[in-house]
Protein backbone atom coordinates (compact mmCIF):
# COMPACT_ATOMS: atom_id res chain seq x y z
CA UNK A 1 0.00 0.00 0.00
CA UNK A 2 1.35 3.42 -0.89
CA UNK A 3 2.06 5.86 1.92
CA UNK A 4 -0.58 8.26 0.63
CA UNK A 5 -3.29 5.59 0.64
CA UNK A 6 -2.21 4.52 4.09
CA UNK A 7 -2.34 8.10 5.38
CA UNK A 8 -5.85 8.61 4.00
CA UNK A 9 -7.05 5.34 5.45
CA UNK A 10 -5.44 6.07 8.83
CA UNK A 11 -6.95 9.55 8.99
CA UNK A 12 -10.41 8.21 8.22
CA UNK A 13 -10.15 5.37 10.71
CA UNK A 14 -8.65 7.46 13.50
CA UNK A 15 -11.20 10.23 12.89
CA UNK A 16 -13.99 7.70 13.25
CA UNK A 17 -12.36 6.23 16.35
CA UNK A 18 -11.95 9.67 17.92
CA UNK A 19 -15.58 10.48 17.17
CA UNK A 20 -16.80 7.24 18.72
CA UNK A 21 -14.61 7.68 21.80
CA UNK A 22 -15.79 11.27 22.29
CA UNK A 23 -19.38 10.07 22.04
CA UNK A 24 -18.64 7.28 24.51
CA UNK A 25 -16.98 9.39 27.19
CA UNK A 26 -19.81 11.91 27.30
CA UNK A 27 -21.90 9.06 28.72
CA UNK A 28 -19.42 8.26 31.50
CA UNK A 29 -19.86 9.60 35.02
CA UNK A 30 -17.73 12.73 35.18
CA UNK A 31 -14.21 12.54 36.51
CA UNK A 32 -13.96 13.70 40.12
CA UNK A 33 -16.85 11.62 41.42
CA UNK A 34 -15.90 7.92 41.42
CA UNK A 35 -19.17 6.01 41.17
CA UNK A 36 -18.49 2.84 43.15
CA UNK A 37 -17.92 2.47 46.90
CA UNK A 38 -14.33 1.23 46.47
CA UNK A 39 -12.69 4.64 46.61
CA UNK A 40 -14.03 5.07 50.15
CA UNK A 41 -14.05 1.52 51.46
CA UNK A 42 -10.79 0.03 50.23
CA UNK A 43 -8.40 2.45 51.99
CA UNK A 44 -10.42 2.14 55.22
CA UNK A 45 -10.47 -1.65 54.97
CA UNK A 46 -6.72 -1.77 54.42
CA UNK A 47 -5.96 0.68 57.21
CA UNK A 48 -8.27 -0.84 59.83
CA UNK A 49 -8.09 -4.55 59.08
CA UNK A 50 -4.68 -4.96 57.45
CA UNK A 51 -2.85 -2.00 59.06
CA UNK A 52 -1.45 -0.86 55.70
CA UNK A 53 -1.08 2.91 55.42
CA UNK A 54 -0.40 3.01 51.67
CA UNK A 55 -3.63 1.73 50.15
CA UNK A 56 -2.15 1.46 46.64
CA UNK A 57 0.41 -1.08 47.81
CA UNK A 58 -2.21 -2.66 50.02
CA UNK A 59 -4.20 -3.37 46.87
CA UNK A 60 -1.13 -4.48 44.95
CA UNK A 61 0.32 -6.84 47.56
CA UNK A 62 -2.76 -7.91 49.49
CA UNK A 63 -6.14 -7.60 47.76
CA UNK A 64 -4.71 -8.12 44.27
CA UNK A 65 -1.58 -10.06 45.28
CA UNK A 66 -2.41 -12.91 42.90
CA UNK A 67 -2.42 -10.42 40.03
CA UNK A 68 0.94 -9.11 41.17
CA UNK A 69 2.26 -12.67 41.05
CA UNK A 70 1.21 -12.79 37.40
CA UNK A 71 2.76 -9.37 36.85
CA UNK A 72 6.04 -10.63 38.32
CA UNK A 73 5.98 -13.55 35.94
CA UNK A 74 5.27 -11.20 32.99
CA UNK A 75 8.41 -9.26 33.89
CA UNK A 76 10.31 -12.52 34.32
CA UNK A 77 9.20 -13.77 30.90
CA UNK A 78 9.96 -10.43 29.25
CA UNK A 79 13.51 -10.34 30.66
CA UNK A 80 13.93 -13.92 29.48
CA UNK A 81 12.62 -13.02 26.02
CA UNK A 82 14.88 -9.99 25.70
CA UNK A 83 17.87 -12.09 26.78
CA UNK A 84 17.05 -14.85 24.29
CA UNK A 85 16.61 -12.35 21.45
CA UNK A 86 19.74 -10.33 22.19
CA UNK A 87 22.20 -13.05 23.12
CA UNK A 88 22.27 -14.38 19.57
CA UNK A 89 23.84 -11.16 18.41
CA UNK A 90 27.17 -12.58 17.40
CA UNK A 91 30.54 -12.01 18.95
CA UNK A 92 31.70 -8.91 17.16
CA UNK A 93 31.62 -6.66 20.19
CA UNK A 94 33.05 -8.93 22.81
CA UNK A 95 36.69 -8.80 21.76
CA UNK A 96 38.92 -5.85 22.51
CA UNK A 97 36.52 -3.72 24.54
CA UNK A 98 38.69 -1.36 26.56
CA UNK A 99 38.56 -0.51 30.24
CA UNK A 100 36.74 2.76 29.54
CA UNK A 101 35.18 3.91 26.32
CA UNK A 102 37.21 6.81 25.01
CA UNK A 103 34.29 9.23 24.83
CA UNK A 104 33.47 9.13 28.56
CA UNK A 105 34.57 12.34 30.26
CA UNK A 106 36.15 12.41 33.70
CA UNK A 107 33.27 14.46 35.10
CA UNK A 108 30.72 11.87 33.98
CA UNK A 109 32.79 9.09 35.49
CA UNK A 110 33.12 10.92 38.82
CA UNK A 111 29.42 11.82 39.02
CA UNK A 112 28.37 8.32 38.06
CA UNK A 113 30.53 6.80 40.77
CA UNK A 114 29.38 9.36 43.36
CA UNK A 115 25.68 8.74 42.67
CA UNK A 116 25.80 4.96 43.01
CA UNK A 117 25.63 4.85 46.81
CA UNK A 118 22.83 7.45 47.24
CA UNK A 119 20.80 5.67 44.57
CA UNK A 120 21.13 2.34 46.38
CA UNK A 121 19.95 3.99 49.62
CA UNK A 122 17.00 5.65 47.89
CA UNK A 123 15.97 2.45 46.11
CA UNK A 124 16.21 0.39 49.29
CA UNK A 125 14.15 2.99 51.17
CA UNK A 126 11.43 2.91 48.51
CA UNK A 127 11.33 -0.89 48.55
CA UNK A 128 11.29 -1.22 52.35
CA UNK A 129 8.66 1.47 53.03
CA UNK A 130 6.14 0.36 50.42
CA UNK A 131 3.39 -0.16 53.01
CA UNK A 132 3.87 3.32 54.54
CA UNK A 133 4.83 5.90 51.93
CA UNK A 134 4.63 6.25 48.15
CA UNK A 135 6.93 3.73 46.54
CA UNK A 136 7.09 -0.01 46.84
CA UNK A 137 8.76 -2.97 45.23
CA UNK A 138 8.23 -2.08 41.59
CA UNK A 139 9.23 1.56 41.90
CA UNK A 140 12.19 0.94 44.21
CA UNK A 141 13.35 -1.98 42.07
CA UNK A 142 13.58 0.22 39.00
CA UNK A 143 15.58 2.78 41.00
CA UNK A 144 17.96 0.05 42.17
CA UNK A 145 18.34 -1.28 38.63
CA UNK A 146 19.28 2.24 37.51
CA UNK A 147 22.55 1.72 39.42
CA UNK A 148 23.63 -0.54 36.58
CA UNK A 149 22.76 2.22 34.11
CA UNK A 150 24.90 4.69 36.09
CA UNK A 151 27.87 2.36 36.07
CA UNK A 152 27.45 1.95 32.33
CA UNK A 153 27.07 5.70 31.74
CA UNK A 154 30.27 6.22 33.71
CA UNK A 155 32.02 4.13 31.08
CA UNK A 156 32.72 1.14 33.29
CA UNK A 157 31.53 -1.62 30.97
CA UNK A 158 34.66 -3.63 31.70
CA UNK A 159 33.93 -3.39 35.42
CA UNK A 160 30.37 -4.61 34.87
CA UNK A 161 31.83 -7.56 32.99
CA UNK A 162 34.39 -8.33 35.70
CA UNK A 163 31.66 -8.18 38.34
CA UNK A 164 29.74 -10.75 36.28
CA UNK A 165 26.76 -8.36 36.51
CA UNK A 166 24.72 -10.27 33.96
CA UNK A 167 24.81 -13.69 35.62
CA UNK A 168 24.20 -11.94 38.94
CA UNK A 169 21.10 -10.22 37.54
CA UNK A 170 19.88 -13.61 36.28
CA UNK A 171 20.15 -15.07 39.77
CA UNK A 172 18.65 -12.04 41.55
CA UNK A 173 15.66 -12.00 39.23
CA UNK A 174 14.98 -15.71 39.58
CA UNK A 175 15.41 -15.56 43.35
CA UNK A 176 12.92 -12.68 43.63
CA UNK A 177 10.30 -14.45 41.50
CA UNK A 178 10.77 -17.68 43.45
CA UNK A 179 10.48 -15.84 46.78
CA UNK A 180 7.19 -14.24 45.72
CA UNK A 181 5.83 -17.66 44.78
CA UNK A 182 7.05 -19.11 48.10
CA UNK A 183 5.28 -16.37 50.08
CA UNK A 184 2.15 -17.25 48.09
CA UNK A 185 2.58 -20.92 48.98
CA UNK A 186 3.10 -19.89 52.60
CA UNK A 187 -0.42 -18.47 52.50
CA UNK A 188 -1.71 -21.88 51.37
CA UNK A 189 0.25 -23.75 54.04
CA UNK A 190 -0.49 -21.50 57.04
CA UNK A 191 -3.91 -20.03 56.21
CA UNK A 192 -5.34 -22.09 53.38
CA UNK A 193 -5.45 -19.62 50.48
CA UNK A 194 -2.86 -18.50 47.94
CA UNK A 195 -1.04 -15.35 49.10
CA UNK A 196 -3.19 -15.08 52.22
CA UNK A 197 -1.60 -13.03 54.98
CA UNK A 198 0.10 -15.30 57.53
CA UNK A 199 2.15 -12.75 59.48
CA UNK A 200 1.22 -10.41 62.32
CA UNK A 201 -0.39 -7.20 61.10
CA UNK A 202 1.59 -4.96 63.46
CA UNK A 203 0.32 -1.45 64.11
CA UNK A 204 -0.62 1.09 61.44
CA UNK A 205 2.34 3.26 60.51
CA UNK A 206 5.07 0.95 61.87
CA UNK A 207 7.80 -0.33 59.57
CA UNK A 208 6.71 -3.93 60.11
CA UNK A 209 2.98 -3.43 59.57
CA UNK A 210 0.66 -5.06 57.09
CA UNK A 211 1.79 -8.67 57.51
CA UNK A 212 3.03 -10.03 54.20
CA UNK A 213 2.68 -6.67 52.39
CA UNK A 214 6.20 -5.40 53.25
CA UNK A 215 7.60 -8.88 52.64
CA UNK A 216 6.05 -9.07 49.17
CA UNK A 217 7.18 -5.50 48.51
CA UNK A 218 10.79 -6.46 49.26
CA UNK A 219 10.78 -9.66 47.18
CA UNK A 220 9.16 -7.72 44.34
CA UNK A 221 11.93 -5.14 44.68
CA UNK A 222 14.52 -7.92 44.36
CA UNK A 223 12.78 -9.40 41.31
CA UNK A 224 12.31 -6.04 39.56
CA UNK A 225 15.91 -5.04 40.29
CA UNK A 226 17.17 -8.25 38.70
CA UNK A 227 14.74 -8.19 35.78
CA UNK A 228 15.20 -4.56 34.76
CA UNK A 229 18.97 -4.76 35.32
CA UNK A 230 19.11 -7.88 33.15
CA UNK A 231 17.12 -6.22 30.34
CA UNK A 232 19.38 -3.14 30.44
CA UNK A 233 22.56 -5.23 30.56
CA UNK A 234 21.43 -7.27 27.56
CA UNK A 235 20.92 -4.09 25.56
CA UNK A 236 24.03 -2.27 26.78
CA UNK A 237 26.67 -4.90 26.86
CA UNK A 238 25.41 -7.57 24.52
CA UNK A 239 27.58 -10.65 24.13
CA UNK A 240 29.87 -11.12 27.12
Amino acid at each position, binding site marked *: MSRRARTVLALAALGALAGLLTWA*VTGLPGSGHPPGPNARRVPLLL*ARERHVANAVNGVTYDLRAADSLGEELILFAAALG*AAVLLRTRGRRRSAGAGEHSAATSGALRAFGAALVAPLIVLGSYLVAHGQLTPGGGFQGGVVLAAVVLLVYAAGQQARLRRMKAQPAADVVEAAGAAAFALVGLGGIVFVGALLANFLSYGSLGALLSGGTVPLLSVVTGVEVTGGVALIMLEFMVGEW
Partner: protein
Amino acid sequence: MVSVAPYLVAAWLLAVGLWGAITSRHLVHMVLSLGVAQASTYVLLLAIGYRNGATAPIYGDVKPGVPTVDPVVQALTLTDVVVEATVTAVLLALTVQAHRRFGTADPDRLGALRG
Protein backbone atom coordinates in the same frame (compact mmCIF):
# COMPACT_ATOMS: atom_id res chain seq x y z
CA MET B 1 -17.61 19.52 29.98
CA VAL B 2 -14.64 19.91 32.31
CA SER B 3 -15.47 16.63 34.02
CA VAL B 4 -15.00 14.66 30.79
CA ALA B 5 -11.81 16.51 29.80
CA PRO B 6 -9.46 13.78 31.19
CA TYR B 7 -11.33 11.17 29.12
CA LEU B 8 -10.90 13.30 26.02
CA VAL B 9 -7.16 13.56 26.77
CA ALA B 10 -7.05 9.75 26.94
CA ALA B 11 -8.86 9.47 23.59
CA TRP B 12 -6.45 12.02 22.08
CA LEU B 13 -3.39 10.11 23.33
CA LEU B 14 -4.75 6.86 21.88
CA ALA B 15 -5.42 8.46 18.48
CA VAL B 16 -2.04 10.23 18.36
CA GLY B 17 -0.17 7.09 19.39
CA LEU B 18 -1.92 5.00 16.73
CA TRP B 19 -1.25 7.71 14.13
CA GLY B 20 2.44 7.63 15.03
CA ALA B 21 2.56 3.83 14.76
CA ILE B 22 0.76 3.77 11.39
CA THR B 23 2.90 6.45 9.75
CA SER B 24 6.16 5.41 11.42
CA ARG B 25 9.33 5.20 9.36
CA HIS B 26 11.48 3.68 12.09
CA LEU B 27 10.82 0.74 14.37
CA VAL B 28 12.04 2.53 17.50
CA HIS B 29 9.65 5.37 16.71
CA MET B 30 6.90 2.80 16.28
CA VAL B 31 7.60 1.24 19.68
CA LEU B 32 7.52 4.65 21.36
CA SER B 33 4.26 5.50 19.55
CA LEU B 34 2.80 2.35 21.04
CA GLY B 35 3.92 3.67 24.44
CA VAL B 36 2.07 6.93 23.79
CA ALA B 37 -1.07 4.99 22.87
CA GLN B 38 -0.77 2.95 26.05
CA ALA B 39 -0.34 6.13 28.11
CA SER B 40 -3.99 6.82 27.29
CA THR B 41 -4.93 3.92 29.57
CA TYR B 42 -3.05 5.51 32.49
CA VAL B 43 -4.94 8.77 32.03
CA LEU B 44 -8.25 6.93 31.71
CA LEU B 45 -7.71 4.81 34.83
CA LEU B 46 -6.55 7.70 36.99
CA ALA B 47 -9.42 9.88 35.74
CA ILE B 48 -11.96 7.22 36.72
CA GLY B 49 -10.62 7.05 40.27
CA TYR B 50 -10.11 10.78 40.83
CA ARG B 51 -12.22 12.47 43.49
CA ASN B 52 -12.51 16.24 43.75
CA GLY B 53 -10.80 17.67 46.82
CA ALA B 54 -9.52 14.26 48.01
CA THR B 55 -5.99 13.33 49.04
CA ALA B 56 -3.72 10.46 48.04
CA PRO B 57 -4.85 7.10 49.50
CA ILE B 58 -1.95 7.02 51.96
CA TYR B 59 -2.63 7.48 55.67
CA GLY B 60 0.58 9.11 56.76
CA ASP B 61 -0.26 12.71 57.50
CA VAL B 62 -4.03 12.26 57.28
CA LYS B 63 -6.23 10.07 59.47
CA PRO B 64 -8.28 7.17 58.05
CA GLY B 65 -11.68 8.48 57.03
CA VAL B 66 -10.43 11.51 55.13
CA PRO B 67 -11.72 11.26 51.53
CA THR B 68 -9.12 9.78 49.19
CA VAL B 69 -8.92 9.01 45.50
CA ASP B 70 -9.59 5.41 44.46
CA PRO B 71 -6.51 3.25 45.21
CA VAL B 72 -7.71 0.31 43.11
CA VAL B 73 -7.32 2.08 39.78
CA GLN B 74 -3.95 3.42 40.92
CA ALA B 75 -2.77 -0.14 41.55
CA LEU B 76 -4.13 -1.12 38.12
CA THR B 77 -2.16 1.76 36.61
CA LEU B 78 0.96 0.41 38.30
CA THR B 79 0.33 -2.97 36.66
CA ASP B 80 -0.21 -1.16 33.38
CA VAL B 81 3.11 0.70 33.64
CA VAL B 82 5.00 -2.51 34.39
CA VAL B 83 3.44 -4.31 31.43
CA GLU B 84 4.20 -1.37 29.14
CA ALA B 85 7.85 -1.36 30.24
CA THR B 86 8.24 -5.09 29.63
CA VAL B 87 6.49 -4.96 26.26
CA THR B 88 8.75 -2.09 25.23
CA ALA B 89 11.82 -4.09 26.24
CA VAL B 90 10.81 -7.11 24.17
CA LEU B 91 9.79 -4.98 21.17
CA LEU B 92 13.11 -3.11 21.25
CA ALA B 93 14.94 -6.43 21.39
CA LEU B 94 12.96 -7.52 18.32
CA THR B 95 13.91 -4.22 16.66
CA VAL B 96 17.58 -4.96 17.26
CA GLN B 97 17.11 -8.39 15.70
CA ALA B 98 15.21 -6.99 12.70
CA HIS B 99 17.91 -4.42 12.08
CA ARG B 100 20.58 -7.08 12.29
CA ARG B 101 18.74 -9.31 9.84
CA PHE B 102 17.57 -6.78 7.27
CA GLY B 103 20.03 -3.92 7.74
CA THR B 104 17.22 -1.40 8.16
CA ALA B 105 14.72 -0.35 10.81
CA ASP B 106 12.23 1.18 8.36
CA PRO B 107 9.08 -0.97 8.62
CA ASP B 108 8.30 -0.42 4.93
CA ARG B 109 11.67 -1.78 3.85
CA LEU B 110 11.72 -4.89 5.99
CA GLY B 111 11.74 -7.75 3.51
CA ALA B 112 9.53 -10.79 3.38
CA LEU B 113 10.12 -13.56 5.90
CA ARG B 114 13.26 -15.55 5.25
CA GLY B 115 14.10 -18.93 6.65
